[in-house]
């Protein structure tokens, strides 16, 4: 009686033939639909794209999911374009298209890799021109069931395929994808003729630091409030960041900033720098600073005798240090949500987009 009841419970899910002895290679056709769906859930974008070309049923399975891509980056220049899709820190697809001339014929070289640096790529050549290949490539992220959380653009040349894609999906007012956060990595987007594109943030990071191998990285930044001429859509904050190596202690850095108080850089971020209580007291004594506490952040307010209009806030937390130049009556600013180190903090910001910017700018911690 009990045995029969157990069997009743256990045989609700699958017919018995499913468990029949079977040898040989994998056979997709004998898998129940639920199982196929379960496997497709774990597949990366390239596999899903290949699978949906195999048969109608597989296409239906793949298309039945709503896929959210955390980070997509599109780059373009005169003779190349690239698309990078980061599904996670480990699931990356980077496709680089380069226009080449072979015996007076225009061809496109395609390089596919699974890392952000584009290393260890597989390469093949297509007979079509770059624009045609690019259009078909952008088709991967154009399906209706795909949403993109952050779209990072570094556009230096107006490729028709990219302009058309952005126009259809992101144009001001009626673009269906306006939940996507658009971050530009350079100011050249005005040359790329995307004046209709609303941009949430422009994050320009100078790549002039040459010695990446040693020292702690410091990001010096300035936020601009300008709109490029001819850009009709909304445009968010524009920030310029200059990475440099901090090869001195915090006290020497503060002295240096105080010495050049009139310099244009307003923010200095040193992610991961730990400052002990004793060191904080020493800094406060040395610079005659007023110490205040805002939640988990200790703020040292330093005024310089030579400059009566500006002062310096040194914000110290377990995540790192932020130094901010401010007007004499201005209060220190703290973000309403998240960490004061923003995308540079690997402890607080675990998102794929911030990880990408940290990794490409060699900020340690991930």
């Amino acid at each position, binding site marked *: 009686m*009990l045995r029969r009841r157990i069997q009743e419970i256990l045989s609700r899910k699958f017919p018995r033939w499913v468990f029949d002895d079977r040898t040989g290679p994998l056979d997709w056709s004998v898998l129940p639909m639920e199982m196929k769906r379960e496997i497709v859930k774990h597949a990366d974008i390239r*596999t899903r794209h290949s699978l949906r070309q195999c048969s109608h049923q597989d296409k239906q399975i793949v298309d039945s999911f709503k896929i959210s891509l955390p980070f997509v980056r599109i780059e373009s220049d005169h003779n190349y374009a690239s698309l990078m899709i980061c599904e996670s820190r480990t699931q990356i697809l980077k496709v680089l298209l380069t226009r080449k001339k072979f015996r007076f014929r225009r061809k496109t070289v395609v390089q596919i890799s699974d890392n952000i640096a584009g290393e260890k790529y597989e390469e093949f050549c297509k007979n079509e021109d770059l624009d045609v290949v690019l259009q078909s490539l952008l088709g991967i992220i154009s399906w209706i069931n795909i949403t993109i959380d952050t779209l990072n653009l570094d556009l230096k040349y107006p490729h028709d395929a990219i302009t058309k894609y952005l126009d259809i999906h992101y144009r001001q007012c009626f673009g269906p994808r306006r939940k996507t956060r658009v971050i530009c990595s350079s100011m050249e987007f005005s040359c790329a003729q995307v004046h209709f594109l609303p941009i949430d943030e422009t994050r320009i990071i100078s790549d002039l630091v040459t010695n990446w191998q040693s020292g702690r990285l410091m990001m010096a930044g300035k936020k601009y409030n300008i709109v490029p001429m001819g850009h009709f859509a909304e445009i968010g904050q524009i920030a310029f960041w200059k990475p440099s190596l901090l090869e001195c202690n915090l006290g020497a850095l503060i002295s240096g900033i105080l010495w050049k108080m009139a310099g244009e850089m307003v923010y200095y971020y040193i992610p991961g720098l730990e400052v002990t209580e004793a060191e904080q007291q020493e800094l406060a004594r040395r610079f005659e600073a007023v110490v205040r506490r805002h939640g988990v952040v200790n703020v040292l307010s330093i005024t310089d005798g030579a400059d009566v209009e500006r002062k310096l806030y040194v914000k110290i937390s377990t995540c790192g240090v932020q130094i901010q130049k401010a007007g004499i009556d201005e209060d220190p600013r703290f973000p309403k949500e998240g960490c004061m180190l923003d995308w540079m903090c690997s402890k607080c910001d675990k998102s794929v987009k911030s990880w990408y910017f940290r990794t490409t700018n060699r900020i340690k911690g991930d």
Partner: protein
Amino acid sequence: MSVENAPVVDVDEAAIPVEKKMYYRFESNDKKEFRVSELAIQQSETLNRLVEAMGYTSEDVENKPAIAIENIDGKTLKLVFQWCEHHKGEAIPVDDGSVPKIVEIPEFDAKLMDIDNGLLFKLIWAADYLNIVQLLNVSCKKVANMAQGKTPAQLRRVYLLPSDEEDEAAKRAAQEAQDPRAREVEEEFEERKRQGGNSFF
């Protein structure tokens, strides 16, 4: 812990554990018996509910016959219980519905699943059947990884995927084999259509 050292016990091979934990007895369809700890059982929602519903005491476990799982063979069940014992006490992941699922395959699981494809698919079926969420995740991830970077043509070879035409042909053959009368009716219908009449309406 290596795969070999995982504490699943074949009754006829190894000694009964000395600890005073509750060990349930399960029997595969080829009559192999396994002893699995109460904590390991919790990884399987189906088995956990089953043993809860049965309300066995430790005497019952010894005296009553082993719980039969007739749909799974001994080889697969051994892998399943090895996995459960290794991961006992771990939190069961909750499906948040996000696609793609981001799953890392731990070293132990990778070694455990270093098996032939037929057995791997049986393991997936068993994981789904017994509702072992994390085992299903890692085994599906393993199958998905097999297809990584493959073109559609290569995928067809890896998974033995049928094309649309083959699918249609198989469906037709199955229909015909199932119901010869249906075929006759269809032929009759086709014949009438060819003659121009529409006697059905």
